[in-house]
């Protein structure tokens, strides 16, 4: 049995390690071969980028060698896939090699596309790459007064990020002693301040307490870099001194180029996590088109279901679990407090009051993440 995992992010790495553990006897007996193909030899802890943008972490703290995170029995290659031949059960990589499989796990992730909104790439700060997070921090250190506008593109990964950003901005400017000289204005594309109703209900009084101005139904149409104005499709505009954008996201280009899913999101069975029409192809993490958050935690819970099912198919011939849509998001409510949102397909989140121990839990998780991707937690 040949299992091929494409993508070495959170979802792919957990699936591969989990399978290596569950199928160790079969791999030793050479009945199962486990291969991972990734675009990079480095693994980045993406949630850490927000800390980099506020000078709380340095970029080098976010990386580990991918090979060091993988079980020794995984055949790992840095060789991104360029062509998927799902009807022939093989893929072709950048180096020209063909990899055959019996079971394929797609975990290719997502990317930001700020260039889809005129002016956003040039005029807005963001924190979704190492370079942009460092640039945003330098810009934050420079600003002395004026309006800091936050805009949100659609769709975007980690739905909590815009809210966390606001809390962090408020605490950052307070710590610098210039909060009274900075106006923070938040813009959100739908009719309330967050896509998750319970988060919107919880965050609204928090925004009022912090003196955050907000405008809903603001879908960014363009950023006028020269005049420092951001405009919406609804016809409103906000002048700014500094603009921070949560850029729109798409699935990876290779998914679109192979016509596997619109926008790069692969149509996925919400319970089995198989690609629609392909029972031997599993999809995890940002790559799915599921109506759940595109976060590391969703990728983690999906990866556990996928690896358990693949292992049980090999051992007893049938899958044993369904994905229930579970997501667990930490919400940093500033630089010294946090809460969390946990939800699934059936149950909405029930947010608790922020506390310092929850903030420490998040700080601890930033380190425990490496244990988590190794398939231990």
């Amino acid at each position, binding site marked *: 049995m040949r299992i091929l995992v494409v993508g070495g992010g959170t979802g792919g790495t957990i699936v591969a390690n989990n399978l290596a553990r569950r199928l160790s006897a079969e791999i030793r007996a050479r009945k199962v071969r486990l291969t991972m193909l990734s675009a990079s030899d480095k693994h980045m802890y993406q949630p850490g980028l927000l800390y980099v943008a506020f000078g709380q972490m340095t970029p080098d703290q976010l990386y580990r060698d991918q090979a060091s995170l993988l079980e020794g029995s995984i055949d790992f290659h840095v060789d991104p896939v360029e062509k998927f031949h799902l009807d022939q059960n093989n893929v072709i990589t950048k180096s020209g090699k063909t990899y055959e499989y019996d079971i394929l796990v797609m975990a290719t992730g997502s990317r930001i596309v700020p260039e889809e909104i005129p002016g956003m790439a040039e005029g807005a700060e963001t924190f979704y790459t190492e370079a942009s997070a460092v640039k945003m921090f330098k810009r934050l250190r420079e600003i002395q007064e004026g309006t800091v506008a936050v805009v949100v593109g659609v769709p975007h990964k980690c739905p909590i990020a815009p809210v966390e950003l606001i809390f962090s901005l408020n605490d950052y400017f307070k710590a610098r002693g210039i909060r009274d000289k900075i106006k923070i204005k938040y813009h959100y594309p739908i009719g309330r301040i967050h896509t998750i109703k319970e988060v919107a209900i919880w965050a609204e009084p928090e925004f009022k307490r912090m003196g955050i101005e907000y405008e809903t139904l603001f879908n960014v149409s363009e950023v006028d870099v020269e005049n420092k104005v951001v405009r919406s499709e609804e016809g409103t505009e906000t002048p700014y001194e500094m603009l921070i954008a949560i850029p729109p996201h798409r699935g990876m280009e290779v998914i679109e180029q192979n016509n596997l899913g619109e926008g790069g999101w692969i149509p996925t069975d919400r319970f089995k996590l198989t690609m629609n029409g392909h029972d031997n192809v599993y999809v995890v993490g940002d790559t799915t088109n599921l109506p759940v958050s595109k976060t590391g935690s969703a990728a983690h819970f999906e990866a556990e279901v996928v690896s358990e099912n693949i292992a049980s198919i090999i051992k007893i011939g049938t899958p044993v679990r369904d994905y229930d849509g579970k997501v667990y998001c930490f919400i940093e409510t500033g630089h010294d407090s946090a809460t969390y949102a946990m939800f699934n397909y059936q149950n909405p989140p029930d947010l608790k009051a922020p506390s310092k121990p929850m903030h*420490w839990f998040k700080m601890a998780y930033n380190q425990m993440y490496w244990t988590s991707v190794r398939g231990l937690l």
Partner: protein
Amino acid sequence: MTTQTETPLGAMPNEDLQRLVEFAQLVTAGRDAMSDEIVTRLAAAMSEGLTLLDRLTRNEGLMHLLKVLDRQDTQHLLIALSDAIHAASQEIPAAPPATGGLGCMMRVARDPGTQEGLRLLSVFGKHLSHSMREQHRRGG
């Protein structure tokens, strides 16, 4: 609303209240002493410790070695090994440097200690080779 099973604070003995206050003070002191950096360092150490423990406990060879080391006869070997390390560490620095040459080689070869040492190594080598052949035969 207070239920019958709850004890109002006022009804608690002073000693118990005092202990509760002390416990709360202890927790508060610990909390105040913590910082993000301490939490981060502790979590990093725990994370790496857990990974190391996982690697060790899933290392088949190491687990087999621990099982063998637990046996009574191996205890004797370990004690003998410790004694040998101690004795050698004392004997070697005190011994004159080797003069070299065939005569020296012959003297060393005639020494019963050398012969015992070679026998020990050859017995060890025989069993090591046998075990490796056996594992290879089983597909290891």
